[in-house]
């Protein structure tokens, strides 16, 4: 059943949108950040960055896809782990190398929490304009562009998952 202003996706499995654009959990995080004055926004970002470690794979978890690599866009290795339940809900875990910037760590925790339970297609369709609403205009600047990198990596693994699903259906 739909709750609040959210609505069901095509399979009827997950409440995903609160305003037609963002998943409900992500929208709550966006609203939280937008309500904060600049100093508290920084503190909250650091708090999220501190929690990035908690987004790592846990013992006993299994994944449909794992993508661990060091890209030129980021200072260190980033691992993305995707598990999709039978009802289509995605769960994302991530590992970050020690050189990854603090803002990127913060966005990792934001996205793992905010996208929990969304489907891979919903994640793929997600616009990236919310990033500046979370980080704030002052911190989005030259040398902090990797804030978009984590979202790109999450979308990338979702795309691979969906492509494989489609190929399997065709076969």
């Amino acid at each position, binding site marked *: 059943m739909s709750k609040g202003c959210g609505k069901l996706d095509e399979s009827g499995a997950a409440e995903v949108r609160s305003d037609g654009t963002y998943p409900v959990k992500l929208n709550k995080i966006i609203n939280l950040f937008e309500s904060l004055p600049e100093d508290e926004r*920084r*503190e909250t*970002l*650091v708090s999220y*960055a*501190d929690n990035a470690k908690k987004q790592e794979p846990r013992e006993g978890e299994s994944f449909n896809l794992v993508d661990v690599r060091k890209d*030129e*866009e*980021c*200072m260190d290795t980033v691992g993305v782990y995707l598990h999709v339940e039978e009802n289509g809900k995605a769960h994302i875990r991530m590992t970050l190398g020690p050189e990854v*910037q*603090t*803002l990127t760590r*913060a966005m990792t925790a934001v996205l793992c929490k905010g996208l929990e339970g969304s489907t891979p297609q919903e994640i793929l369709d997600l616009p990236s304009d919310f990033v500046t609403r979370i980080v704030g205009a*002052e*911190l989005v*600047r*030259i*040398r*902090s*562009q990797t804030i978009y990198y984590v979202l790109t990596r999450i979308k990338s693994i979702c795309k691979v998952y969906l492509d494989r699903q489609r190929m399997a259906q065709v076969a």
Partner: protein
Amino acid sequence: MATHPTQYAHPEALVETDWLEKHLKDDGIRIVESNEDVLLYDTGHIPGAVHIDWRADLQDPVIRDYITPEKFAELCSKNGITPETTCIFYGDKANWWACYALWAFRLFGHEKVKILNGGRDKWKAEQRPMTRDVPKYPKTNYPMPKKRFDKEIRAFADEALAQSEAGKPLIDVRSPGEYKGEITHMPEYPQEGVLRGGHIPKAKSMPWKTATNDDATFKPASDLAKIYFDQCGVKPDTDTVVYCRIGERSSHTWFVLTYLLGLDNVRNYDGSWTEWGNKVGAPIEKGA
């Protein structure tokens, strides 16, 4: 063959981590952290250190330039700095931004400046104390600098061109790929490209990192002399211009040439490749 120095020209411009840990509470010093990672200070810093952000604190918010002398005086006053305060800069990325902040302080004539050898990474690797407590210092009344020393330590595009045309020492401290024009961005930062790749004609390539050891400390004076005097053709009696992409890596080299090798006339072309590589009609050489 010229004899190379065995000691830094200004050894007092460096402090070691061990020394700093023993002098954290000394009067007359202010530890200043400047990083590329915009939130790194917030995650923990050397006790007593203040944060000076290269972008938000040192640059004009609208046009591409530095803050005014009035704003510099406000910045120092807010951080409890007087003209007599010795500012000890440190930061991430092997002190790129620490050297950039130091250079900016010198632009406004602040003379008592030092670098923490090895920067933040060395301090942390040695498991020295860190805190999230943000210090508060009594506000000072830093006098407004009478001038900015652009002419002395900063070069503009026309001056970089003149340096090139005169065949005077001009050092490109970017990566070899950027210098050759194989890439139009810095390694690790493909989102920060420019329109044209290559280097300013006659510039010598000497990546900033050549001056450092693996732990981000500076190489000995004799090694630095070989690198810059022998390989780059820098001469003590000739003015030198250094550049990179936005002026931070070249601030590192500027510090090496000015304080560790003791050259009097070194200027940092901070417009660097983001200006030159986008500038209509600017001459460019490609290749090694």
